[in-house]
């Protein structure tokens, strides 16, 4: 067998899987090659929290033994991947990206790690993240135990967060795919800023057992991959009910593109203003082109506006109040001051004093948000919006998630927060470049409509090659 060529680092899961089965290389050879690359380039992007080379090689030997006797376990068998460092891995440090938890070790794998292990996927490393997944609200990209996430497309730019290592490692071809988590944008934003395809599953579709809790009613775990198809393959493995996760919906995900409606049968809601006036001038041309590609698929387009709610205060109040309860010991012990971002520490301290009435008011308004989106999804099947209105900022700039230039026209502005509040699935697709940095669009659907979102995502990616582009610095 031969050493895998560089192309393999940017190949899809199906392509790598086919080569493994054809014995072009062994799982051990593939895993060694990915581990070498992750250890060599991971620190260059501050993407690596912990290499798991030894256990990965052991697992790869098991996979090779299985493949020798044709014991197949699906398309993820033998695929090296990375996991955000908020997912517990038995016997290994799980830092949650934060100094107060730097020595933390759990005695059980997170549920998603267990599932992927059974599927034959090979965990090669823990990936860097914003400390406590940004709980409380952080001000700078440097809010992490491993330093600011440096974007493979330009290391002076941020990766986005909080799944910063997952975004960078996937973009730079350091892992076959990565797991991230989202509470208020932590899968979609790094996916968009790093030029990879990211899927935020419906709330409750993927078990969070063994993952750091930031907000019980908002946290989701999902994949960052090279394509919509890859996201489907990972989601198919990790989705499923779990009685030990109180938020579990008790549902699985069956990837069945043959049962998805054709684009001609889909009504897609969008706001033209999102693609021009509300977008950064450097990104408008490619956003408009992407909109044209979506239209050319044959979907019916309908102009809509986002239901009018105070999304940022809603998300902020709910996330901060729940985070303050979850991290109350850290806050009251004073160890919260060990966080790298002092504003984040201050926000968590202040959050302890959020009145119960404010939290409950936010949760009651959230009920109305859900109802409003239920009604909106009677008119349209899914929504289309830029994932972020501008490309990645410089790492020295204060973090600004909205990033719209000047006053923001309504359009679908606020979908990132709204989608999280309503527990909706979303798929972020690379759609071009602005100033050399990736930009992306998002499809947002009804709860548990992932199969349909992925079908439209695949159709879009069959007409474009943005998801196949490689960062210039990843060599």
């Amino acid at each position, binding site marked *: 067998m031969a050493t895998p060529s560089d192309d393999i680092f940017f190949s899809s899961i199906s392509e790598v899987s086919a080569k493994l089965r054809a014995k072009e290389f062994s799982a051990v050879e593939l895993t060694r090659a990915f581990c070498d690359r992750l250890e060599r380039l991971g620190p260059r992007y501050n993407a690596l929290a912990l290499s798991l080379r030894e256990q990965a090689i052991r697992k790869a030997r098991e996979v090779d033994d299985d493949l020798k006797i044709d014991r197949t376990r699906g398309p993820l068998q033998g695929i090296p991947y990375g996991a955000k460092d908020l997912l517990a891995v038995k016997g290994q440090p799980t830092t949650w990206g934060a100094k107060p938890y730097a020595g933390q070790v759990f005695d059980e794998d997170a549920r998603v790690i267990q599932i992927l292990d059974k599927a034959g996927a090979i965990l090669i490393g823990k990936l860097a993240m914003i400390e406590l997944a940004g709980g409380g609200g952080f001000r700078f990209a440097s809010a992490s135990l491993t330093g600011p996430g440096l974007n493979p497309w330009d290391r002076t730019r941020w990766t986005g967060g909080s799944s910063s290592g997952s975004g960078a490692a996937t973009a730079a071809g350091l892992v076959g795919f990565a797991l991230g988590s989202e509470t208020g944008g932590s899968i979609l934003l790094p996916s968009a800023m790093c030029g990879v395809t990211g899927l935020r599953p419906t709330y409750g579709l993927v078990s969070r057992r063994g993952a750091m809790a930031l907000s019980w009613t908002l946290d989701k775990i999902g994949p960052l991959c090279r394509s919509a198809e890859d996201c489907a393959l990972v989601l198919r493995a990790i989705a499923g009910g779990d009685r030990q996760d109180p938020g579990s919906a008790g549902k699985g995900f069956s990837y069945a593109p043959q049962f998805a409606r054709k684009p001609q049968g889909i009504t897609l809601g969008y706001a033209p203003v999102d693609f021009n006036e509300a977008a950064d001038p450097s990104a408008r041309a490619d956003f408009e082109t992407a909109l044209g590609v979506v239209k050319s698929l044959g979907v019916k387009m309908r102009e809509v506006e986002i239901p009018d709610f105070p999304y940022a*205060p809603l998300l*902020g109040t709910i996330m901060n109040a729940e985070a303050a309860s979850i991290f109350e010991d850290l806050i009251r012990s004073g160890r919260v001051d060990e966080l790298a971002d002092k504003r984040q520490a201050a926000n968590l301290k202040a959050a302890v004093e959020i009145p119960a009435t404010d939290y409950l008011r936010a949760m009651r308004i959230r009920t109305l948000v859900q109802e409003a989106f239920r009604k909106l999804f009677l008119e349209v099947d899914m929504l289309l919006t830029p994932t972020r209105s501008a490309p990645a900022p410089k790492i020295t700039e204060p973090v600004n998630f909205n990033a719209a230039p000047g006053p923001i026209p309504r359009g679908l502005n606020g979908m990132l927060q709204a989608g999280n509040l309503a527990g909706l699935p979303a798929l972020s697709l690379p759609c071009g470049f602005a100033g050399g940095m990736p930009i992306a669009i998002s499809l947002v659907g009804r709860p548990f409509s992932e199969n349909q979102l992925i079908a439209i995502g695949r159709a879009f990616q069959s007409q474009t090659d943005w998801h196949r582009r490689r960062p210039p610095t990843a060599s």
Partner: protein
Amino acid sequence: MDVTRRSFAQMLALTAAVDEAEAQAPSAEDEDLKAAHEQARSYSQQLAKFPLPRATEPAFRFEA
């Protein structure tokens, strides 16, 4: 160097004044905490303005 009683008294007064000024000047930490409280207050005010029917219960289920 000889230190007169007068210059010693002046030094003490100066030190006390510096200490007092430092104690009064808000630290970056205080400023961060103040900003955090202000944001929480702003969120609270924005949520309070939103009309909310009395019968609306909190969202604790997130399924379709």
